[in-house]
Each structure stands twice: as structure tokens, then as C-alpha cells.
């Protein structure tokens, strides 16, 4: 007889959602989190997309500690002197609140409390070493030599999944799996945030940028999200390209982003409140591990569930959806034949039926086009050339757009044939 029906490792969005679902269904669940308070080791860029939380907290949009909702989404290509951008600012976001800015230390603590309120037992400040196995079946978790037993273990430990790796359930991470996320939370007043980003009340701006001005091979994206009276600003750096460069410091790139002439005025006068770093899962479907086995399932970042196409970066929604799917799989297994590798196979089926694995399969190979010289160097340079030709009056005869575009390809720094091929691949995969 196990001490618990299920043990959930990790009190982030995936783990808390799983624990809430299990506890509400009357199961005896233990949620283990290494940080105390929960959330205090968690970082994300800061937009929670989608409405997956509704399944476990129907009124979350009104009650959760969210900062603002996405009213405007921006994408910008930064060169040394320019930002060539596109913005989608729309009333459509008022009717369908597609994304919410969140700060994880607050949100995750709230989610864990919700799980507790729903009946989950919560152990914070407790570090799990590995999953305990007996005759090939997960029988609980091991912590400092003790085993806490359960019928099922749900690993939701985040982007640096030590427990899964140390238990042999996931391969060690490599350059293809992760990018380096570095972030600052910068304090301004609510009024200043509203004025600078053209916002009212709870409206927020979420911007992603291609940092085309970085030296040599270094490739990184930047982000800027408005919170209530702070801004979350940061960079996501390709591990592979930083390694190839081998002379640029990760912690300098965020400063270069914040000092860019198009970004600096937006954060000017703000005080840096916090500096943080976190890995971003980028491996795509090829690097998703075996998601379940006899007595265990892996959810959220720990399973490599995230989505990035350069225009949008998502992870928390996949975490919540997969946490709930794992819980539902367990609930169904308990009602039926019990927990076994066969019954937990339903987890993968649920994910295949949902956007979680559908997106990962549909966007296979996306990393090859989001990281590369076309989006990170050629496009920013070419776009700047076109804009310069169109808008900077030089007192010389004007050129047709077609002519500017042809020239722009020449200015882009990569060969035309390569640009056409890469551009085609990019459009197909995005």
C-alpha cells in the first residue's frame, strides 16, 4: 500500500495543475517543491498564453496574480541603429484575452496554494534526488536516502530536469535542447508604463525582437513585456552560436539589448529590481523524451514542451495542459485496470489529441529556421535597406520597391540563392 496515490515533483504550472486536478478528483496527492516559498526559484519571460488554467481554476483570469493582459503584440528586427517592427494592437484581444503577463514567484506560489486548498499535501523546501524503482516500476521518490511511496510519480521539475536525468528517464541536455534565458525586472511607475507603451488600465504590450546587431556568430532574441509597474526585459541566447563565438559573455548580451537606441528609452530611468536566468527548452519533438513508463509520467518543460517560432515564445500553457493530461491519465487508470505502463500510455494519446504534441509535430525542425543567418542577420539588414530607401529622403531620384528589394538582398549579407531557399523553408516551417 503506497503512502500516496500520486507524487508530483515540482510546483510550477505543470506540477500545480496536475496536483489540483488529482486533488479535486479526491486523490491523495503529494506535491514536492524544492524552493521555499514555492515559485522562488522559477523564472520565465513572462507571458502565459491561452486559457488552459480554466480547467482547474475556472475564474483564474479574475483571481490569479496576473500583471496585465496582452493588448498589443510586437515583433521587431533590430540593427545597430534601427528597429523595423510590426505591431498587432487590437480590440480582438479585449474579447479574447489570449495572453497574460505574469511574474512566476507570485503566480507559482498562488498556484501551489490553490493546490493545497483543493486538498493536495504540499512539501516545500524538499529536494527529490531520483525516482525510486522496484522491479521496473516507479514506486515513489527518493529523498536523502528515504523513499516516499506512491502509485504514480509525475515529474514536472522544469527546464533543468535533474531528477528525470539522474533517474535515467531523460538524456542529458545538449546545445540543441536549450537556449540561455537572461532577464531583468525593471521598475517604473504604472503611469510611465502606460504612457511609454500606449496602454490603459490592465492592457499590456508583449514584444519579441531579433537582435541583428550582435557581433559575429552570436544569435539571440530579445523580449520586452509590460507588467503592472515593472517591465520584464530579457534575451534568449542560442547556446550553439554562443559556443561557436566563444568570446561573448551571456550576461553582456542583455545589456546590449537594453542599451539599443530603440529599447533604451522604454526602460530609461527604471531601477533594476531583479536579475535572473533560466534555460529555455528549444529541442522540439525530436528531443522529447519517452513521456511515460510503468508508474511515471513527465510533463511541462521537463518533457521539452515549449514552442518558439521567433514571433512568439510559449511554455507555460504547454506545461499546464500536459500536467492536466497526466492527472487525467492517472485518474482514468485508477478507475480501470490500475497504474501500469499500458494504462499510462493514455498520457501520450491525450497529448497527441491536444495542441501540445500536435504543435511539436507540426513545427518539427522550426529551430533550424528560427536560429540562422537569414532571420538574425540577412532579414534585419535587408529590411533596414528597404526602409531607408523608402523613408529617408536623400534628394536623389526615388527607386521602385522592387528595385529596393533586389538591392536589399545584396545588402543582406547572404547569397540570393541561399536567401530564397532559406526564406522558403522558413515560411513552410513557421
Amino acid at each position, binding site marked *: 500500500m503506497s503512502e500516496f496515490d500520486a507524487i508530483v515533483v515540482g510546483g510550477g504550472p505543470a506540477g500545480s495543475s496536475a496536483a489540483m486536478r488529482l486533488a479535486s478528483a479526491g486523490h491523495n496527492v503529494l506535491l514536492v517543491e524544492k524552493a521555499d516559498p514555492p515559485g522562488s526559484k522559477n523564472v520565465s519571460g513572462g507571458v502565459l498564453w491561452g486559457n488552459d488554467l480554466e480547467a482547474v481554476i475556472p475564474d483564474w483570469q479574475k483571481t490569479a496574480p496576473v500583471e496585465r493582459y496582452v493588448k498589443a503584440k510586437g515583433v521587431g528586427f533590430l540593427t545597430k541603429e534601427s528597429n523595423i517592427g510590426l505591431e498587432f494592437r487590437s480590440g480582438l484581444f479585449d474579447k479574447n484575452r489570449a495572453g497574460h503577463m505574469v511574474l512566476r514567484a507570485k503566480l507559482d506560489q498562488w498556484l501551489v496554494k490553490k493546490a493545497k486548498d483543493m486538498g493536495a499535501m504540499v512539501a516545500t523546501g524538499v529536494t527529490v534526488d531520483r525516482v525510486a524503482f522496484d522491479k521496473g516500476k516507479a514506486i515513489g521518490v527518493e529523498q536523502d536516502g528515504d523513499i516516499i511511496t506512491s502509485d504514480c510519480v509525475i515529474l514536472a521539475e522544469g527546464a533543468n530536469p535533474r531528477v528525470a536525468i539522474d533517474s535515467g528517464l531523460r538524456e542529458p541536455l545538449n546545445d540543441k535542447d*536549450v537556449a*540561455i534565458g537572461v532577464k531583468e525586472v525593471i521598475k517604473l511607475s504604472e503611469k510611465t508604463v502606460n504612457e511609454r507603451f500606449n496602454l490603459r488600465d490592465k492592457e499590456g504590450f508583449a514584444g519579441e525582437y531579433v537582435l541583428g546587431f550582435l557581433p559575429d556568430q552570436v544569435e539571440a532574441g530579445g523580449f520586452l513585456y509590460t507588467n503592472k509597474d515593472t517591465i520584464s526585459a530579457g534575451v534568449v541566447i542560442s547556446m550553439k552560436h554562443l559556443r561557436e563565438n566563444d568570446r561573448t559573455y551571456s550576461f553582456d548580451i542583455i545589456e546590449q539589448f537594453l542599451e539599443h537606441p530603440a529599447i533604451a528609452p522604454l526602460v530609461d530611468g527604471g531601477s533594476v529590481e531583479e536579475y535572473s536566468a533560466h534555460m529555455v527548452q528549444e529541442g522540439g519533438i525530436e528531443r522529447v523524451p519517452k513521456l511515460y513508463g510503468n508508474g511515471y509520467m513527465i510533463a511541462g518543460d521537463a518533457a521539452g514542451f515549449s514552442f518558439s517560432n521567433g514571433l512568439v515564445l510559449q511554455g507555460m500553457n504547454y506545461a499546464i495542459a500536459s500536467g492536466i493530461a497526466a492527472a487525467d491519465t492517472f485518474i482514468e487508470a485508477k478507475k480501470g485496470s490500475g497504474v501500469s505502463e499500458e494504462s499510462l500510455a493514455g498520457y501520450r494519446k491525450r497529448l497527441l489529441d491536444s495542441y501540445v504534441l500536435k504543435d511539436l509535430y507540426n513545427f518539427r525542425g522550426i529551430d533550424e529556421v528560427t536560429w540562422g543567418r537569414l532571420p538574425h542577420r540577412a532579414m534585419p539588414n535587408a529590411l533596414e535597406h528597404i526602409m531607408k530607401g523608402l523613408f529617408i529622403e536623400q534628394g536623389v531620384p526615388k527607386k521602385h520597391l522592387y528595385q529596393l528589394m533586389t538591392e536589399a538582398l545584396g545588402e543582406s549579407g547572404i547569397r540570393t540563392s541561399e536567401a530564397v531557399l532559406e526564406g522558403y523553408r522558413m515560411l513552410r516551417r513557421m
Partner: protein
Amino acid sequence: MKLEDRLALLNYKIDRTYAHITVKPDICETCPDHFCTFSCPAKCYTLIDGKLNFKYEDCVECGTCIVACAHGSVSWTNSKGAHGVKYKYG
């Protein structure tokens, strides 16, 4: 803003008895790239007179170094007893 000043903003509960990351000095000594010194966002890895110096106290527990080190020098375990970095915002 200098990294040292940015790190000084953070709260840590430093574990004096247990280092959650360890490195193998003999591997670092012959390392051709020292990519850890470029990739670690908290500058836990520095070169002093060409010799790798590692301190875990400033670690923000992102896990970058274990991926960055291609030479098997870095051992990474989760911090224990709620030690380590404590974010206010996250």
C-alpha cells in the same frame, strides 16, 4: 549596469556545507575553450591567471553550465533544504 551590481540585488540562502555544483580541476586545467566562463549568466566561472576559478554562491540555478561544459567537468545537483537563490519576481 555591471553584473556584480545586478547579482547583488538577489537574495540567497547560501548553503555553507553543500556545494550543489562541483567541477573537476584537472579537466578544467586542460580545457581548450572555457565556454563556462562565457555562458554562465552569473559569472560563477572565471579565469584567474589562466586558471579556472569556480564559486557556487552566486549561482542562480539555471543549469546552463552543465550543458555548456562539453568536457564532463561539471556535476550538477539540485540545491537542498531550500538553499540557493530566492527570486522575488521570477
